[in-house]
């Protein structure tokens, strides 16, 4: 099993195989399932992602039962039609895809957690935007997910991916890094560039706290996926342009783990700090769960 980014990159260079191929081979070895079964399962995950990207941006959109989030992917869809977006349509399409997916998640719809449900929009945000940008086939999109998964496993086994232990950097930060690295590979970049993209993506979100209002995966989680996808695209482009992070990917992952462990409990998915502890955040919690839910 590949336990570090360096091992993964070295193996890709030595064997001259793409990272997705190394991931499929590892999965066949560890699960004893056939290549066909493994690819089919990943295809189902892709289908669920595609359905969520669509669902949140159709008609009037979807809304959570609390009313805190929903209907904003639709606003982005309509805004894009004006052709006057400041960041350009590719970027806003990515943001729309991410927000749409997370709105479906907050409304208790079906999603594919990548790596977590709170960060579920980031990877679909990247992949369905690149599909249109690079005319990707379904096979290439499935391969993208294997590459993202290979890097995600290294992050998860070395640092963790739970907001409660590592903050949002471990969730949206990890998702963003996975998306950045996989985007580089699918765009024709080298294994080293994948590693640089991952390192830059995590470095840029280092220290991001997990502070959900009322403990709900809504505010600010939905829009954190917008920065997750934006950061992934930017980090991928920087790596493809030849920029490097200077601090190697594995050291960045170790640093993220340390930063996460150093975060106070209030900023690790307890809903007690950050935006959750603002006067408005507290009022929202009181309105949803009653005054007794907020201790003085």
């Amino acid at each position, binding site marked *: *099993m590949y*336990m570090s980014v360096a091992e993964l990159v070295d193996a890709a260079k030595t064997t001259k195989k793409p990272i997705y191929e190394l991931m499929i081979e590892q999965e066949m070895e560890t*699960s004893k399932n056939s290549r066909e079964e493994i690819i089919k399962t990943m295809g189902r*995950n892709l289908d669920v992602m595609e359905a969520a990207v669509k669902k949140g941006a159709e008609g009037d959109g979807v809304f959570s039962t609390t009313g805190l989030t929903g209907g904003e992917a639709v606003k982005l869809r309509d805004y894009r039609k004006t052709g006057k977006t400041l960041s350009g349509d590719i970027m806003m399409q990515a943001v729309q895809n991410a927000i749409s997916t997370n709105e479906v998640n907050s409304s208790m719809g079906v999603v594919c*957690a990548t790596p977590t449900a709170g960060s579920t929009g980031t990877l679909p945000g990247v992949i369905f935007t690149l599909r249109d940008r690079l005319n990707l086939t379904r096979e290439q999109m499935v391969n993208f997910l294997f590459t993202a*998964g290979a890097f995600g496993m290294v992050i998860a086994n070395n640092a963790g991916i*739970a907001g409660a232990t590592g903050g949002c950097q471990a969730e949206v930060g990890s998702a963003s890094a996975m998306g950045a690295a996989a985007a580089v590979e699918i765009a024709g970049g080298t294994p080293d560039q994948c590693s640089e993209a991952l390192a830059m993506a995590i470095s840029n979100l280092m220290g991001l706290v997990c502070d959900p209002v009322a403990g*709900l995966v*809504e505010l600010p989680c939905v829009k954190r996926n917008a920065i997750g996808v934006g950061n992934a695209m930017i980090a991928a482009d920087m790596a493809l342009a030849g920029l490097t992070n200077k601090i190697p990917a594995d050291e960045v992952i170790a640093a993220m783990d340390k930063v996460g462990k150093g975060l106070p*409990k209030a900023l690790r998915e307890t809903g007690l700090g950050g935006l959750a502890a603002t006067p408005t955040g507290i009022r929202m919690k009181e309105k949803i769960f009653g005054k007794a839910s907020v201790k003085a």
Partner: protein
Amino acid sequence: MTVNYKSVFDIIGPIMIGPSSSHTAGACAIGRAANSIFKDKPTDIVIHYYESFAQTHKGHGTDYAIISGILGFEPDDSRVPYAIGLAQKQGINITFIEEPGDSPINHPNTAIIDLKNDSKQITVAGCSIGGGTIEIREIKMDGFDIKPKGPLPILLVQGGEDDHQNVTDQLANLTKVNDQKEYQSGKGNLYEYDLDRRLKAHEIDELVKNNNKLVYL
């Protein structure tokens, strides 16, 4: 290093009903572990939440998720959000307790489940470590107090030395055993195997054929 994430589908997946992989899908998985150990319909369910689970279970749908797991539902089952009502309709008493202290198994996403009916009682302490992946760190059943390292899959076998040897032989052909422990109670012996990979359904069936008190988590 402990390898918790053994499959690419631990990272890309699971397919699930929102909103949280750790607090919803993971809670469902802890409930499913309790269901696999209890192997029966409980009359009473008591859930003790600690730390992040205690603070945010209401917002994350942890309550219905953990009950859905105890009922044996998968995390993407459309009945997941209605699990509490479905359990109550079957006459099951459900209590949720927000514990004020630190987690006794040392993780912020901790749930301890007590299940009982007229004939038996178990306690399962699990934690949800992210992305829907869980660890089971303590199990009390049939007079045994089992304390696994945490990562799944775990196989529990009750019986004598013969059973132990049979299972050990069968496993030798299937996967690496990362850790093995033996427990004793008034009711005999229990053997815990921490396995390197998940077993396939037909492999579990083969093991159960020889030992129907076997628990696979």
